[in-house]
Structures are given as structure tokens and as C-alpha cells.
């Protein structure tokens, strides 16, 4: 559905996006994850037809953004971080107006309106003036304006910023429901949000895509099954001595449970069987062993730190990309 090749965007001398290439399929929910200023919004604005890339090209459904920008804009719905709303208008009236300027006729808009109001849970505020709505409802009206013309691609820039926990839960279900009819792109720096809402994640750092894949794929590419949580029985000193002696253990943290010891450890590779053998030989009881999948937060920090260190190592050269 979306293909970006070598996207680069400069603001003066500053490269906000550098050589970003990716493909996104139909009916996917893809998250753009990155720190503030990483280049997420710039990529989304290029995809929405609001910004020209300095180089590279974007196609949406085979349509080139440069060759036919207006045709592409008809196929895209965009919600920036601050919803663009005419505060003096009523919700229904505003959505009708947006549908019309997005190129749909009034019959189409009238048919689409009840469905969009239901999708965005806005039926109860249909006749309310937008200025009187809460922040959460304003965000939902923002999403509604992005989908009123039945776009193939919906782009949501930080859709949950500023929402309270209940509103976040509601917003999550709204975003998931969009997947039935469109490809959805979301940007966020809130890691848990991306994992709970998206099928796939593109990690962006300093304008580059440093990794892509599902959370599990990203975790596997970096961890290789080497992080474990073990529940052990035995004397604390003996356990500590055994783990320190082991050539397979890179690091560990030990805490005392009710009648056991809980150890979080990192192996130097997938040496689970060898470690278990060593512990059993020392007479240490093993009550449990669990592979610990990395939290996306850890993955993200690893990815961005590895990119930074690569940049430092190879001063003057482009940082090595880590791909899942």
C-alpha cells in the first residue's frame, strides 16, 4: 500500500529524515517509534502530502506523491498531534464540511457520517459545539475528520498524547477498529502504546530507521534468548559463587523470595542447558526457569544506543542500520 524509497528531508542544513525506506501493506497498523525530534512527524507529514522530501519518493497505492499529489491526498486521512478543528462548528457540521473538501459528494458524506460517528464513539456529541468538548472528544473528532472520506491510509500523529488513562483505552479501541477499512500509521514515543496497538514497529532514531518488525522480532534480534529469570533453592553464598564462576553468565541480579532465591541473569549466548547442569552439580535446586523477553523500552534503548555508539565509532560515516 505504501512504499517509501530513500526518503530524506532537510530543514536548512539539518537532516530531519535520512534515507528512510520501508514498505507497508494493506490493513496493517504500523507504529513509528522514536524519541522526540527523531523524525517521526516529518516522515508522516511527507506521507500525508504536506511536505516534499528533499530526495526519495513515496507511492501510496501505486500513486506517486509528486506526480499526483491531489489524487494521493484524497486517499489519505491525516490527524496531526494537535487536532485541526474549527472550534465554533458543531461536530456533525464540521465532519460534513471536511468530507466535502476532501472531494466526496454530499450523498456519500451523509451515508458515511453515522458510521464514522459510531466508530469514533461520537454519537452523543454530534450536535455539540467543538469548543465545548473535552480533550479526549476533540481527539476523536480529529480521527473522525481523518476517516470521513473513507481513505485507504489513515495517519495519526501522537493520537494519545494528552489523554487520561480511560481516554487512552477508548482511543486504542477506536484505532484498532480503523484497521478493518484502512492501513493505519501511528507515531508515538509511548512504547507500551505502540506494542498494544500496532502489528509492526518502525524504530526511528536521528532521522534513520534503525529497526523494524514486531515487538517479538525486535526482541529476538537483540536478545537471542539469553535473558532468564530463575527461581533457585540453596544457600545464597553458594549460588552467588556458582554464578560468578560460570563462564556462561554475563551478569546477574539476585533477590530473596519467601523460601527461594530469584535470579535475573544474562547469558553470553544460549547456554541454558549448560548453566542448569552447573547449578545441579553444585547441589543448587532449580524450581523454575523462565526466558525473559525484552521490554520494548529496553529494545528501544539498545537500538538507539547501538546506533549512537556506531555513529561515534564510525565518525563521518553513516551509522550501521540494525534490521530485525
Amino acid at each position, binding site marked *: 500500500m505504501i512504499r517509501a524509497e530513500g526518503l530524506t528531508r532537510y530543514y536548512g542544513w539539518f537532516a530531519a529524515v535520512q534515507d528512510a525506506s520501508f514498505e507497508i501493506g494493506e490493513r496493517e497498523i504500523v507504529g513509528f517509534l522514536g524519541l522526540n525530534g527523531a523524525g517521526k512527524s516529518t516522515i508522516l507529514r511527507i506521507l500525508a502530502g504536506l511536505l516534499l522530501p528533499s530526495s526519495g519518493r513515496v507511492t501510496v497505492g501505486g500513486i506517486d506523491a509528486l506526480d499526483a499529489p491531489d489524487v494521493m*491526498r484524497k486517499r489519505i486521512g491525516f490527524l*496531526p498531534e494537535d487536532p485541526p478543528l474549527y472550534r*465554533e462548528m458543531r461536530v456533525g457540521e464540521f465532519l460534513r*464540511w471536511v468530507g466535502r*473538501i476532501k472531494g466526496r459528494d454530499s450523498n456519500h458524506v451523509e451515508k458515511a457520517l453515522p458510521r464514522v460517528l459510531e466508530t469514533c464513539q461520537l454519537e452523543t456529541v454530534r450536535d455539540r459545539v467543538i469548543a465545548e468538548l473535552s480533550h479526549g472528544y476533540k481527539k476523536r473528532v480529529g480521527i473522525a475528520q481523518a476517516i470521513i472520506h473513507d481513505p485507504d491510509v489513515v495517519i495519526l500523529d501522537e493520537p494519545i498524547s494528552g489523554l487520561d488513562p480511560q481516554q487512552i483505552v477508548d482511543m486504542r479501541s477506536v484505532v484498532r477498529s480503523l484497521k478493518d477499512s484502512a492501513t493505519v500509521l501511528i507515531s508515538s514515543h509511548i512504547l507500551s502504546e505502540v506494542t498494544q496497538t500496532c502489528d509492526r514497529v518502525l524504530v526511528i532514531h536521528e532521522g534513520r530507521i534503525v529497526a523494524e518488525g514486531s515487538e517479538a522480532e525486535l526482541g529476538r534480534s537483540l536478545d537471542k534468548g539469553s535473558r532468564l529469570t530463575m527461581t533457585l533453592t540453596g544457600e545464597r553464598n553458594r549460588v552467588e559463587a556458582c554464578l560468578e564462576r560460570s563462564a556462561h553468565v554475563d551478569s546477574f541480579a539476585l533477590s530473596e523470595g519467601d523460601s527461594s532465591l530469584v535470579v535475573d541473569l544474562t547469558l553470553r549466548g544460549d547456554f541454558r542447558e549448560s548453566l542448569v547442569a552447573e547449578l545441579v552439580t553444585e547441589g543448587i535446586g532449580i524450581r523454575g526457569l523462565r526466558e525473559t523477553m525484552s521490554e520494548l523500552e529496553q529494545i528501544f534503548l539498545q537500538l538507539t544506543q547501538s546506533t549512537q555508539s556506531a555513529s561515534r565509532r564510525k565518525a563521518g560515516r553513516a551509522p550501521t542500520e540494525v534490521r530485525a
Partner: protein
Amino acid sequence: MKEMLLVARRDLASYLNSYWGYVVIAAVLMTDGLLFNAFALGDQPKYSTKVIEEFFYFSFGLTCIASVFMTMRAVAEEKQTGTIVLVDSSPLSASQYIGGKYIAALAMMAILILGTAYMPALVFVNGKVSYGQIFTGYFGLLLVAGAATAIGLFMSAAANSQLVAAFLTAATLGFFVISWILAKVVDPPLKDIVEYLSFYDRHFRGFGRGQIHTESVIYFVSVAFAFLTMATRLLAMRRWQ
């Protein structure tokens, strides 16, 4: 055209649903009424035609001032609040957007100008008024409003803040209004050009006296067209940036 009218209808509703349009109209009508009573009618006997001419003189100035306040929000406010993204991300062209904004602002100016009609009507009470002079004067006022609104719209498209837009519009209109004074201190051939640009002295004065000069009609329409074209080009350029 359909899209242009969509923008115009929304903008017109925005003027009418907020206090802004009413405040500008009320302030201008009140000032015009006071000036008409104090100076145009005055306390000395005058010919009706002179009263009407002075009425159009004051109305001309107030039309220019009103256009500053009527257009300052048009595009600059959309840039400030971010609603211009709706237009930028839609298939709407810059000319359709500017055209719609222009129609709405001009409609408000027309309402304002027609609101002054009670003043010449008062002259009927004790005077003898030529309908031709009144219609010609109002036609001239609409032409001035058309040109001034186009200038205001261009400045609103150029500025990122409403205040800057208002200042730039006021400065530009000020130049067009007083250029006949500037012409006195400028040598030819620049003198002829500056003199020709004068909104009032060279072009509007005749309308107030009941005369229509084709040259002046073309002049006001040309100014409006030039500034609307520039506003359209400016928006089209910034759209991708």
C-alpha cells in the same frame, strides 16, 4: 467553484457565529454615522450632492479601515491554530481556498457597506438626491472593498500572526490612499506612477460625485486580481514546505 463556495460558506458562518464580524460592522457604522452627522450634514446649509459626496469620502476611509480588521484573521488565524492542515491535506487547490476566503470577506464588507444606506436615505428628508450619484458611489465603495480585501487577504496569507497581517495591510492601504501626497514630492516619471496608484484622489473621488470612469473600474479590479493571484501563489508555495 463548488469547493470555493464550501470554503466561503464556512468562513461566512464563522464571521456570523463569532463576535468579530459584528464588532467590526458595529464600530464602522457608528463611526461613519458620527462623521456623517458632524461633518457631512454639519450645521451649515449645503447642497445635497455635496452632503452625499462627503458621506462617500468618509465611507471610503472607513471601508479601507474595516477591510484591515475583516481580513486579518482570514488565513493567519488558520496558520496559528493549525486548521490550515485540513486544507493542505485535502485536494482543495490554493486558488479555490483563497477564492472562498475572498468571497466570504467581500460578502461581509458588502453587508457593512449596505448598512450605511440609511445615511444617504436621511438626505431625502430635506434634500434632493440623485439616485445615480448614490448608486455610483456605492459601486465605487464595493470596488474599493474588493481591492482592499484582496490586499488584506494577501497580507494574511503572508503573515503568521493576525497582528502582523493587520499592520501590513494597514501600511499597504495607507500607501495606496496617501500616494497622491507622495506624488507631490516625487519627480517624473515616478510621480505619474505614484499618482496613478492613489485610491481616493485619482480613482474614487469621481464615484463619490456620481461619475464612473472605466479606467478606475479597471484599476480596482486589477489591484484585486493582482493581490489575489499573489496570495494564491504564496499559499501554493508554502503548501509543500
